C-alpha cells in the first residue's frame, strides 16, 4: 500500500486551534472508490474495484463471475463428444485451442492415436486461431490506449484469418473442429496456397503494426517501466503465457511438453526480460510473427494424403482414471484435468485456464500504479474475462 496522508491527527489539531468545526476524516474518506466494470468501457465482462488516492491506485480487487456458465458442471452431464461445442464458448476467439487440450485428454483416456495428417491439420488450425485471438487482443489493447488505428487494422486483418478458418472448418468463430481422434474434416482444395498468400501478406502488415504502434514514442513513454512483474514474482504468482515470457522466462508448452506434431517443428520461444507493460504487449506480437514461421513449416511438412481422424465408437467410454493435458493457447497454458469413471460421461472436468491464473497478478500490478496506467496493465495481462469465469 502507498503511504497515505502523513497524519490526520495533526491536521485536526490545526483546525481546532483555528476554532473550526472539525469533521473527523478517516483514511477511507480520502480515497475515491472507482467501480471499473462491468459497464465500464475499459473492463469487459469483468469488474474490479480500485481505490485511488489522487492519481495513484492504492487498492485493487478483481471480481469476476459475470459470465460464469458452470462449464465444468455441464461437462459432467454430457458425453465426451457432446462437450465440444459448449467448451469452446468461454473463448470463442480461440476456440480451436480450448478444444485442443480437451481432445488430447480424452484421447489419452479413450486410448486412441491421431493420424499424422490429422495432427498437422490440428496444428494449422491451432496456429490460425492463435493469430485470430492475438489480433483481437491487440485491437483491444490499441483502443484501450486510445490508438484507434490499432483497433481497426488488426480487426480488419483478423477477418482474413477468419475467412481461412471458415474455409477450413465451415464456421467463422466457433469451429468445433478438434474432436477426440483428430479433426472433423480434411482441408479444402487450394487451402495451402491461400494460406501461404495470407501469411506473406500478414508478415508485411506486421511490419506496419510495429511502425505505427510499437515504435511510437508516445506508446513507449506510456508503457515502458509500467507495471513491472519481476521474474521472481512471475514464478511466485504462477502466471502463464505471454505474461510469463515477458518477465524473462522462455516457457512455452509447445516446447516444454510438445504435443502432437510440435516436436518436429523448429521455432524459438519468444520472450523479453523487462516484464513491464510494453514487454507484455510486445511478446504476443512476436508470437504472431513466430506463428507465421510455424505455419509455413506445417504446410510444408504436411503429408499429402491420409486419414485425418481415427474412428471412434459412437459413444466412447473413457478408461477409469484421470488425465491432465495442456496446450499453449493465445493466453498461455490451457489444461484439462479429466477424471473418468468408465462411463461415457466424465466424472469431473477441471479447466485450468491462463486468464484465471493471470488475474492473480492484476491487483499486485495495479497497486501503486497511476489511474492512467490501469488499462495498459489490465489488458497487457492477456486476460479474457469470459475464459476466466468459465
Amino acid at each position: 500500500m502507498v503511504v497515505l496522508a502523513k497524519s490526520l491527527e495533526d491536521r485536526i489539531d490545526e483546525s481546532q486551534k483555528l476554532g473550526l468545526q472539525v469533521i473527523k476524516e478517516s483514511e477511507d474518506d480520502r480515497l475515491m472508490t472507482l467501480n471499473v466494470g462491468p459497464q465500464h468501457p475499459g473492463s469487459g465482462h469483468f469488474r474490479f474495484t480500485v481505490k485511488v488516492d489522487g492519481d495513484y491506485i492504492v487498492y485493487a480487487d478483481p471480481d469476476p463471475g459475470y459470465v460464469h456458465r458452470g462449464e465444468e458442471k455441464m461437462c459432467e452431464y454430457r458425453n465426451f463428444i457432446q462437450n465440444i461445442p459448449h467448451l469452446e464458448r468461454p473463448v470463442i476467439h480461440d476456440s480451436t485451442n480450448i478444444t485442443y487440450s480437451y481432445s488430447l485428454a480424452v484421447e489419452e483416456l479413450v486410448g486412441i492415436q491421431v493420424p499424422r495428417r490429422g495432427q498437422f491439420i490440428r496444428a494449422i488450425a491451432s496456429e490460425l486461431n492463435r493469430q485470430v485471438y492475438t489480433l483481437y487482443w491487440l485491437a483491444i489493447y490499441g483502443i484501450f490506449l486510445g490508438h484507434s488505428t490499432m483497433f481497426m487494422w488488426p480487426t480488419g486483418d483478423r477477418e482474413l484469418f477468419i475467412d481461412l478458418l471458415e474455409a477450413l472448418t465451415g464456421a467463422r468463430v466457433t469451429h468445433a473442429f478438434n474432436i477426440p481422434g483428430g479433426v472433423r474434416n480434411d482441408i479444402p482444395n487450394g487451402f495451402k496456397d491461400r494460406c501461404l498468400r495470407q501469411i506473406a501478406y500478414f508478415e508485411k502488415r506486421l511490419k506496419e503494426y510495429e511502425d505505427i504502434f510499437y515504435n511510437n514514442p508516445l506508446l513507449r513513454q506510456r508503457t515502458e517501466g509500467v507495471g513491472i512483474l519481476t521474474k521472481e514474482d512471475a514464478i511466485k504468482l504462477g502466471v502463464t503465457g505471454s505474461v510469463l515470457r515477458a518477465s524473462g522466462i522462455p516457457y512455452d508448452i509447445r516446447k516444454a511438453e510438445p504435443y502432437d506434431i510440435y516436436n518436429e517443428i523448429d521455432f524459438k520461444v519468444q520472450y523479453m526480460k523487462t516484464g513491464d507493460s510494453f514487454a507484455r504487449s510486445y511478446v504476443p506480437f512476436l508470437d504472431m510473427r513466430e506463428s507465421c514461421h510455424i505455419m509455413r513449416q506445417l504446410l510444408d511438412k504436411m503429408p499429402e494424403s491420409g486419414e485425418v481422424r481415427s474412428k471412434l465408437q459412437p459413444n466412447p467410454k473413457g478408461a477409469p482414471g484421470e488425465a491432465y493435458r495442456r496446450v499453449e493457447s493465445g493466453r498461455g497454458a490451457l489444461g484439462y484435468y479429466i477424471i473418468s469413471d468408465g462411463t461415457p460421461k466424465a466424472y469431473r472436468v477441471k479447466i485450468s485456464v491462463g486468464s484465471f491464473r493471470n488475474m492473480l497478478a492484476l491487483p499486485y500490478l495495479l497497486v501503486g500504479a497511476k489511474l492512467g496506467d490501469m488499462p495498459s496493465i489490465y489488458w497487457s495481462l492477456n486476460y479474457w474475462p469470459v475464459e476466466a469465469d468459465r
Partner: protein
Amino acid sequence: MNQSTENRSNSNFQSSSLAKSKTDTQAKNEPESSFEKKLVSEITSKFGDNVKVSYIRPLRMKIIVNQEYIVEIATFIRDSLGFDHAESVAGTDYPKDNKIEVIYHLGSYSRDDLAGHILALATHTSRDDARLPTLMNVFKSVEYHERETFEMLGVYFEGHNRNERFLLPEDWADIPPLRKEFRIKGR
C-alpha cells in the same frame, strides 16, 4: 470408483500420444519414466508412509498425502524438488466414499528439466466438515484457485485470507454447485 483411479495401469499409456512425445524428446534408451520415479522416491524416502503414490507416468506423477502433512510436504516439494507454482486446484466430490479430493497440479518454471512435468499433490477431506489447511503460504499462486474451490465445493481452507464468494452470483444461496447432489435443472 476412487480405487479404480489409483489402480490405473501403466500399459494403457503405451499407445497414447503422450508416451510417444515423451520418447521423442527424452533419450530413447532410458527406461520409461525413471526420472519421475526418482523425483517421487525423494518424497517417499523423506516422508515414508505419509505419502501414497497413486501413479507415475511419463511427465505426470500423483501422490496422495494426509492433510496434516500437506503443508510440510508442499514446502519440501517447493524447496527441494523445484516445483514452484500451482497450475490448478481441482476439487472432486466422492459421495460414495464421503470425501472430497483436492488436487494441486504443481509445475516448475525455474527448473528446465521439470518444464513439462506436473506433480499432482492430492489430499482428502471429509464431506461433512470439509476443512483443509491452505497452501497459500507455500504457493502464492493457489490463492484464487483455493477461493474458487471453496465456493464450488465448500472446502474451507484454514488460514486462507478470503474464503468467500468469487465466481458465483452475489445472492447465491444454494449448496456448492460442484458437489454431486447439486443437479442442473432439467437434466
